[in-house]
Structure formats: C-alpha cells, structure tokens
C-alpha cells in the first residue's frame, strides 16, 4: 500500500467534515474520490498534505506515519497536490513556477523543466506570468508544477473544472500519459463523470464525511445510494427547453 | 548666499564679503522640538536685529553688521550635523549660535571641532554636553543640575513650615530626567521624604500616576518636562480634584504659553529659572533687561523666557568676544582659535547677569557665572520668590484651592 488512511476524522469547530474515513491506495493506479458538494473531499486532501491537522486518525505513507507533520515535510516525502481554487505563483512565469519547486537545480532539473513544459503544452506561455494564462493552461500548469517535485503520489482536486468535454478528454489523456511516464500514483477528485469513468481504476465515494461506497467504477455507477446522493439521472432529467417548443 | 538663505530682516544691504559677520543659527524648526526651536530662534534674532540697528559689532574703529544663516536640524542630530557642515563649508559662517536641544548639540559639536568654528548654545542644558569637553562649544544657560536645586531649597528651607514630602515625576528625556534627578538629590539632602519617583516615557497619560500620588498626599509634586507635559499635569490633577501644597516644575513654566493656556490654574506653580523679565539688569546692547523685554515683546508679541534670553545673551557674548579680539570678518582659522581663548577668559555683565565660562571640570565651557532662581506664577506673571536675597515677591504656600483663585 502506498497510502493508507485509518479512522481519519476532522472537525471545524462543531462541524464534522470528515468522519472515520478509511482508504487505501495501491501503488500505480488512479483512484477516484467522489461525492456531493461539501462531502469532505477537499478537506481530506488538506489532511493528507498536512494543511490541517486531523482531529484523530492516522495517515501512513510508504510505511511512514505522516499524521500532523508539516506540509513541506510531507511534500518532501513524495506527496504533491493541486488546488481546487488555483494557487499558482501568480507573478512568476510559467517556467519559474516549475523551477521554484524543484528541489535540485542544475542540468537535469533544467531538462526536466523543459520536458514538463512540452508535455503540458505550455511552450508558448513559458515566459508569461502565470496569472495571465488562460484558465485551462493554468490548470495544466498546476499539474506540471506538482510533478516538478517528483512525487510518488499526486493529488488532483477537480482538475477538469471549467473545461468543456473536448478539453476534459484531452486532460484525461494527459493524465493517462503522466501515470505511465512518471511512475506515480494518482488520487483524483472530480465531478466530471466523463473523466472519472475514463481514468479511475477504483472509486471511493464520500458523503457527509463518511465513505458510502468503494469499488470499481462500474459497480459504483450502479450503486443506488450513490446515484441518489450524487449522480442523479444524468442529462436525461433535464427537461430540455428547446424540445418543448 | 548661494543657497538662498534669507537674511535677518534688518541686516541692511551690507552683503560684500568681509563687510559682515556671518552667523550660523542651528535650531529645530520642524520635528518634535519645534516649539523650543522657535523660541531660541527668536532669541537669536532679537540679538541680531538689535545689533544691526545699532550699526553692528564694533571691531577696532569700524562697525560690522551680522548676517544670519539659518538651518533647521529637524530635531534630529544627524540633520543637525549636516546643517553645521553646510553653514560652515558653504555659507562660511564665522561662528555658530547653537541648537535648542542637547542631542543636536552633541552631534553638531564634533563638526565645529573639525572646522574650528566656535559655537555658543543659548539653550542646551544637559550636563552631558559639558562633560565631553568640546573645545569650540560653549553654553550660556547653566546646566539643569546647577539650577534645579534652587526652588527645592526655597520650598523646604525658606518657607516656614516648608515641604516635608515630595513626589517626583519626569519625562524620560535627557533634560527632564536631569531635572528630576536634581530635584531628588536636593530634596533628600534637605531631609525631605520622596514618596514617589517615576521617570515616564514621553506621551504618557499622567492621570493614573497622579491618581496614585494623590493617595500618597505629598506636600509637593515636582515635575520634569516641557510646557506640554506641565500643562497636562495641571489639567489632570485638577480633573482629579487633586491639589498638593505646591507644584514644582522647571523649564516651561516660564514659557508664556503656560499661563496663557492654563489661566488661573497656573497660579502658584513653582519653577526654576536663571532669569525672569522682572529683573532689572544693566546691559550694554539693550541698556537694560527691561528694555530688552520691551524690544522682544514688540517683536514677537510674547514675553521672553530664560531660554530666549539665554539665546540673545549668547549673541551678546560673541559680540563682546569679537570686540575684545578685534578681528575683522571673515574670521580666519587663527582668529577663531584665538576667540576660544577670549571666550574662556571673558567675563561680561549682560542682561542675564554675570556671564563667564568654566575652564575645566564637569561644567567645562558652561556658564557658571549665574545663580539659579526660584520662580512662581503669581497673578499670571512669573515672579522671583527665591533665593532669599534675590526674591522680588513672597512665595505663596500652600497653593489656594482650585476654586478660590
């Protein structure tokens, strides 16, 4: 097991955002974390990466107990992430955004930097300040920057938000490629089922901070609890104004 | 005057090099000490204008007017040093009338040493200055530790049934602290019990402290500070319904603003001084100190206090030294060196009284010719109430109640 989370619980004041959460992630797969808005997905990410200290529970990464360790320490161990609300270094260029987090500098690092920029199709923006990039490019840059620290586990928080279906497909391919090229494991939060279904080997479903289902994507899709709480009836339920006329 | 310095109003038209003595005036025209800075400037200007009116300083058989060059030290020692450097090297002043504050004096004095330009301060009164033994720096006001003992003496020894207990408050600046130390030392020497002694940082609210002192019920509340703090102490005490038998303060009480702003509340407050406008002393330049007061009053609207007067006298002392020296402007380096010797030996009777400078010891180059005075505000005016042989009015003790004035 690359990561195992045991009995993770977190309170914000009186509000229990995550409740006795258990999850294991095998090395080399893409695991999905889905659930309704406010279910506690992002909070879970924050706990794993050390941005919040859990009220109780344990997080074991590659055999190390990283619970409550400072964020930079956890990143150093090999967990990188992206943010639901982008957190790029706005006034740094694309290139600098990558370079700044690389922990070794030098020829190899420079080559790695080039490679990431190419892979993520950021060549033409390389010298732009990141805040001046179109949204989609900013999303890609965030992933590239996370990869620059050479993580073993990559946590992606809604990377496809605000993308149209074609862009979602492109991003899905990119992520598929990453997992091959970089020898890493991915934990993905995403509401776009199109992407989740295309990528994930396994899904964990969260509601009210608790796991309500876990298993292969296909099984989850048919889980009535998940359908009711999260998936809905798919586009079918939309009445379609146009057809009514 | 390449830098656009303005001349004193009555300098006349003598601008040619060698026609006038160029005098540098260094003082605080902005920043925290702007009040006293302006008072000193008034003192210096009164001297210059009067000298020029009378035709100038007499050297040999010729008279030379004085031309004033001003520089603002921004109440900051570094700016003060810049200012002296400027006046000496650019304006080529022959001598300098010194700063208002002791801090600026300490930073400016080394520059005067460097260029061998004499400086007399008419205001700085921290004893620390004189301990440095600057060759070119002199001062007309006796250091505070020399003057602050007089009113304590009066209050304790001269008044029948005098003060037995005293609370001392002071602001933590060089001048005010020295005042408090001197009050304390004198009081203790005379067997007075000091029930409270507190040196507070500038800007403190005195009310809580006075509340505490009120509980101790001392005969005298003595304060080291400036006009602003003195006013605040009186206002605070009154609003607490607190009235000791006497308030004792130092500089600032003699300041016209003190009485003007406090009105009857200023009554009976004691202070220390070296001079008041009540004195009648003969003077070469103004004929008498009374005439000086008149001149000053028509010029500035207020009565001069001992600081302004000390500054005017600083100018007079330079004048006397120049007459004695007999050197024509511009002064050469050797002239200026010789001037120091003249100043060291000089003994002039000015409107301030006998003025002479110590040649050695801890008061090196400070005016030790003068004695201190105990003063008290009576009927809205500054009256001399001690020491015994000098008093012009009887001391009032204890002070009348706030509402019986």
């Amino acid at each position, binding site marked *: 097991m690359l990561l195992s989370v045991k009995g993770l619980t977190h309170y*914000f004041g009186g*509000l229990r955002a995550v409740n006795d959460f258990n999850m294991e992630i095998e090395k080399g797969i893409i695991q999905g974390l889905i*659930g*309704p*808005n*406010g*279910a506690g997905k*992002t909070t879970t990410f924050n706990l794993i990466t050390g941005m919040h200290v859990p009220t109780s529970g344990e997080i074991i990464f590659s055999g190390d107990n990283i619970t409550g360790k400072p964020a930079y320490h956890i990143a150093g161990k090999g967990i990188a992430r992206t943010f*639901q*609300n982008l957190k790029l270094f706005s006034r740094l260029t694309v290139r600098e955004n990558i370079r700044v987090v690389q922990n070794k500098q030098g020829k190899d690092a420079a080559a790695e930097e080039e490679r990431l920029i190419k892979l993520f199709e950021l060549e033409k923006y390389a010298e732009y300040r990141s805040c001046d990039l*179109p*949204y*989609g*490019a900013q999303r890609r840059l965030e992933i590239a920057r996370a990869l620059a620290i050479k993580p073993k586990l990559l946590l992606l928080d*809604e990377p496809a*938000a*605000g*993308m*149209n*279906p*074609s*862009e*979602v*497909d492109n991003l899905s391919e990119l992520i598929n490629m990453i997992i091959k090229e970089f020898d890493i494991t991915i934990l993905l939060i995403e*509401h776009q*089922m*199109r992407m989740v279904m295309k990528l994930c080997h396994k899904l964990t479903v969260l509601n009210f901070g608790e796991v309500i289902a876990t298993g292969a994507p296909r099984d989850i899709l048919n889980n009535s609890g998940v359908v009711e*709480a*999260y*998936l*809905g*009836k*798919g*586009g079918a*339920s*939309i*009445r*379609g*104004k*146009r057809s009514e*006329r | 005057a390449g830098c656009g310095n303005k001349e004193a109003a009555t300098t006349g038209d003598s601008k040619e090099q060698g026609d006038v003595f160029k005098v540098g005036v260094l003082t605080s025209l902005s920043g925290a000490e702007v009040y006293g800075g302006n008072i000193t400037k008034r003192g210096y200007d009164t001297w210059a204008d009067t000298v020029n009116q009378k035709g100038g300083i007499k050297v040999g058989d010729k008279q030379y007017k004085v031309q004033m060059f001003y520089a603002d030290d921004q109440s900051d020692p570094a700016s003060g040093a810049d200012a002296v450097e400027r006046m000496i090297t650019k304006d080529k002043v022959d001598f300098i009338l010194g700063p208002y504050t002791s801090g600026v004096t300490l930073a400016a004095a080394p520059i005067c040493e460097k260029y061998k330009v004499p400086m007399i301060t008419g205001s700085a009164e921290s004893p620390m200055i004189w301990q440095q033994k600057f060759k070119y720096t002199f001062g007309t006001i006796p250091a505070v530790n020399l003057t602050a003992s007089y009113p304590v003496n009066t209050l304790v020894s001269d008044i029948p049934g005098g003060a037995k207990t005293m609370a001392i408050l002071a602001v933590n600046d060089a001048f005010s602290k020295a005042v408090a130390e001197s009050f304390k030392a004198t009081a203790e020497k005379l067997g007075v019990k000091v029930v409270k002694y507190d040196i507070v940082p500038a800007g403190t609210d005195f009310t809580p402290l006075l509340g505490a002192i009120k509980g101790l019920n001392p005969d005298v509340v003595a304060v080291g500070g400036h006009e602003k703090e003195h006013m605040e102490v009186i206002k605070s005490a009154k609003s607490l319904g607190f009235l000791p038998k006497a308030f004792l303060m130092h500089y600032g009480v003699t300041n016209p603003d003190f009485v003007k702003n406090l009105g009857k509340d200023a009554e009976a407050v004691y202070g220390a001084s070296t001079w008041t406008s009540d004195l009648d002393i003969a003077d070469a330049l103004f004929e008498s100190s009374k005439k000086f007061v008149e001149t000053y009053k028509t010029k500035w609207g207020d009565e001069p206090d001992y600081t302004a007067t000390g500054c005017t006298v600083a100018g007079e002392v330079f004048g006397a030294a120049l007459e004695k020296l007999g050197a024509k402007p511009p002064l050469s380096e050797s002239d200026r060196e010789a001037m120091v010797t003249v100043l060291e030996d000089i003994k002039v009777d000015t409107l301030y009284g006998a003025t002479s400078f110590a040649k050695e010891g801890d008061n090196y180059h400070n005016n030790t010719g003068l004695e201190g005075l105990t003063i008290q505000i009576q009927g809205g005016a500054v009256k001399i109430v001690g020491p015994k042989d000098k008093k012009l009015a009887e001391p009032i003790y204890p002070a009348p109640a706030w509402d019986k004035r």
Partner: protein
Amino acid sequence: MAKGLSVKGLKVAYGNIEAVHGVSFEVNEGEIVTLIGANGAGKSTILRAVSGMIPVKEGTVILNGTEITSWPSHQITGLGMAHVPEGRGIFTRLTVLENLLVGAFKRKDKKEIDGDLDYVLGLFPRLNERKKQLAGTLSGGEQQMLAVGRALMTGADILLLDEPSMGLAPVLVESIFNICIDIAEAGKTILLVEQNAAMALAIADRGYVLETGSIAIHGDAEYLSKHPDVLNAYLGGAS
C-alpha cells in the same frame, strides 16, 4: 428592439491587450442564449463588459432599449440585470444568509424578498442548513450554489450566468439547468456561458460560438448541436 440585451461591435481590452474583437449578439426577452467557446476565448470578458465590471473599448451595449455601454455596474443592476461572475465572487466574510440578502440590496418589496429567500433555500437545502455559516468556509460547490442563489435574489429580469455548473456534483448540475428553464419560463432572460455545451445547448434557444474573441458560428441551438465543428471542438466528438 424593445426588451432584451443587444450587443454591437463590442471590443474589450485588458490594458493594451484586446481580448474581444468586435462581437455582436442579442438575447431577446424570455430567451435562453448560450455562449460557448474554448478556454480563454473571451466569454467571461464579454459578460464582464456587459455588466459594467470592466470598461468597454468600443461598441455598444443596449439593455431593454437603454444604452448602458460602460455604465458602472451598480447602475446597470438597477435596470434589472444580474451576473453570476466567474469564480463565484461570494462575500466570504458574510454569512450565507447575508450573502443572499445582499443580492436583494436594490429591492424594496419586502414580502417578495422573503418569498424569494424561501424559494432559494428550498432549491438548495444545503444552503438552508448552513444559513449562519461564513460563506468563505463553504466547500467549492456550496459556494457555487450560493452564487446562483444570490443572483436569483436580485429579482433581475435578465441573468448572465458564467459557468454556473462548475464544480457542482452531477445531480446538482441537473438542478441548475432545470432552474434555468424554470426561470426562462417565468419570462426572464438568460445569457448562459457554459463549458458543458451539450447541456447548455439542450436547454437554450440559440447559441453563439466564440473563438479567440470573435464569433465564429451562431444559430439556433439545434443547428449548433449538430454542427460538425461544434461537435468536435466543444462536445467531445460524437458522444
């Protein structure tokens, strides 16, 4: 043209960089019109310029017959336009309830405000549970609900919605689109920017396709949803 929104030759620039190069379109009363386009095409920029958040460089914007080009946004709002901006723009230091009430700032009809409040809280039960929570601590999706709810509270006749479904769980995406239909049926007008082009076209009357700051294709929704270019570029191929 009487009612609705009409934009002619709109140009908008950020500093010296022009992002929208002369765009014209209209939205008639009671219509749902969608604006689709790739990331960075200029959709949000157009909405911002229309609602007065950023200045117009050239062109005219007419709302219900009144020219409102470069009016300050608070005045435009007064004419009955609401805008759910990209990135939600909720007031993080106000509570959920206060956010909704700010939406009704310009309204005086106290009774109807209360009615609308009940309506919105009914639409999003999550918000009802969290009425007193500071909006900044809501999850991403919860904030999105709040942003839409707040726009509904303005009681505006014409709504500009910038990616209202972003970050919402699939089940909520459905409700958002259904809400749009309800609103339109109530006679209000909607200009909808959506990445989820398939759904947007499903509920819209007409649409415009924006490519790098200019309109490339436009037509009624049915036409667009079958247009090969649109299919390829925005609908993820034949899906």
